[in-house]
């Protein structure tokens, strides 16, 4: 029993790995996650706007893209995109980071696009109509009125997506990392292998929780605030084009 516990709670080993984890592992994980989330949001916004277009030749590619990247395992995407880019042998591309960020952005963009799209669609149709009735273009209506309202509503889903990105960033080790490039997972894994003890992984897990648990609570508090920030019915009601009693048509 003692040996079993020792396998997880070797304080000395945990103490040894912590400086690396907190020193650069945490930073590297955050760099990967934040960059991927930002670029993924840009991709997602483009996908959402395309997906809501009236033109099928904009909707179709967005649909195919989304189905593709949501349908593949993260590990596979990172490996294919990563090795694919490396095989092109671009001379200035030596670090796996840009490639990993690209792969994760492509992937999270598909999810974020769906989040944005549902957010935009949840905005009362009357908002867009009011814009158009004032002479705003479709793009202006989206940018100035519809998207700002939709985005507020999808904040919880976005934070959840960010948590998923943080966790997926561990897969970047597939692409080969030199010592200082290692993120949380790789550092813990390396130490666990060299010491034959699981304690470094436990420490790594704690570092992930350090990031994700506060975010989870952030989601809950945003959720609560959105629910409590009630609006009067008149302003948010679906404007009924169709009267309930269709007497004479």
């Amino acid at each position, binding site marked *: 029993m003692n040996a079993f516990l020792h396998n997880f709670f070797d304080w000395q080993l945990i103490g040894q790995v912590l400086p690396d984890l907190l020193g650069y592992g945490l930073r590297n994980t955050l760099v990967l996650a934040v960059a991927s989330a930002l670029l993924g949001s840009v991709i997602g916004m483009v996908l959402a706007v395309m997906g809501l277009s009236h033109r099928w030749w904009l909707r179709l590619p967005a649909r195919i893209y989304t189905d593709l990247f949501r349908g593949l395992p993260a590990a596979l995407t990172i490996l294919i995109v990563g090795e694919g880019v490396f095989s092109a042998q671009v001379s200035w591309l030596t670090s796996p980071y840009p490639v990993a960020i690209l792969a994760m952005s492509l992937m999270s963009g598909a999810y974020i696009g769906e989040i944005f799209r549902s957010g935009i669609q949840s905005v009362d149709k009357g908002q867009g109509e009011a814009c158009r009735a004032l002479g705003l273009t479709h793009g202006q209506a989206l940018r100035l009125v519809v998207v700002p309202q939709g985005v507020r509503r999808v904040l919880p889903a976005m934070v959840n997506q960010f948590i998923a990105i943080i966790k997926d960033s561990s897969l970047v080790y597939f692409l080969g990392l030199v010592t200082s490039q290692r993120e949380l997972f790789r550092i813990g894994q390396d130490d666990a292998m060299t010491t034959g003890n699981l304690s470094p992984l436990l420490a790594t897990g704690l570092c992930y929780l350090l990031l994700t648990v506060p975010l989870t609570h952030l989601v809950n508090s945003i959720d609560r605030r959105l629910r409590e920030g009630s609006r009067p019915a008149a302003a948010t009601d679906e404007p009924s084009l169709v009267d309930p009693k269709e007497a004479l*048509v």
Partner: protein
Amino acid sequence: MTTPDVAVPSHSHRYEGTSLEARDVRMRFGPVEVLRGADLLAPAGEVVCVIGPSGSGKSTLLRCLNGLETRSAGRILLGGEDTSTMDINVLRQRVGMVFQHFNLFPHKTAAQNIMLALRHVKKMPQEQAEAIARQRLRDVGLADRAGHRPTQLSGGQQQRVAIARALAMEPQVMLFDEVTSALDPELVKGILQLMADLARGGMTMVVVTHEMGFARKVADTVVFMDAGVVVESGPPEQIFDAPSSPRLKTFLSQVL
């Protein structure tokens, strides 16, 4: 919260109303022909009230007038000019619209609601847009509500902001689609008063309404629609006191 929702004194605004005409407008939603050749003429500075049962196509006709719906046939003339070659966003600047559910932007204050299109459609500088917003809010009796969000306003106040927002674009025609239907009864009068003032100021108005008293008092022409066509139209006295078609008689017997 002391701003009254009752009549505001009319302001000395003069509006440059322009004529608006719909000729044989047709519109279908899928297989259903909702407008089957509707005609309507609102001469410059006059008020046309559109009445008729639910589902008769009143809203659809109104929405065809500013291109919110795309008609399948027919012509819309603004100031005698065919609008089919006109830039749709220019047409919409010239033809303002107020909705049943106000459709104010909830993330913006009353003043910002008015300023948005001034800034981004008319490309006005911030200060100018702000000055106009304040003026327009004063015109509708909401000078002290400029910084309020829609949620902080009563239904009547929200509808006033919506009217001010449309008027700030200096349209030549105003469309109203059952703008008092979502209001508490005690707030209806104030909005109707505001619209009557607007009419007196020379604005061309097309008003879809269930307020027969308003139609009788303010309209120059009342148009009765049923099943996607204009069945009968004429001055209010004729429509209300001497209806000729059986359908209009039936309708009036139900609503009066």
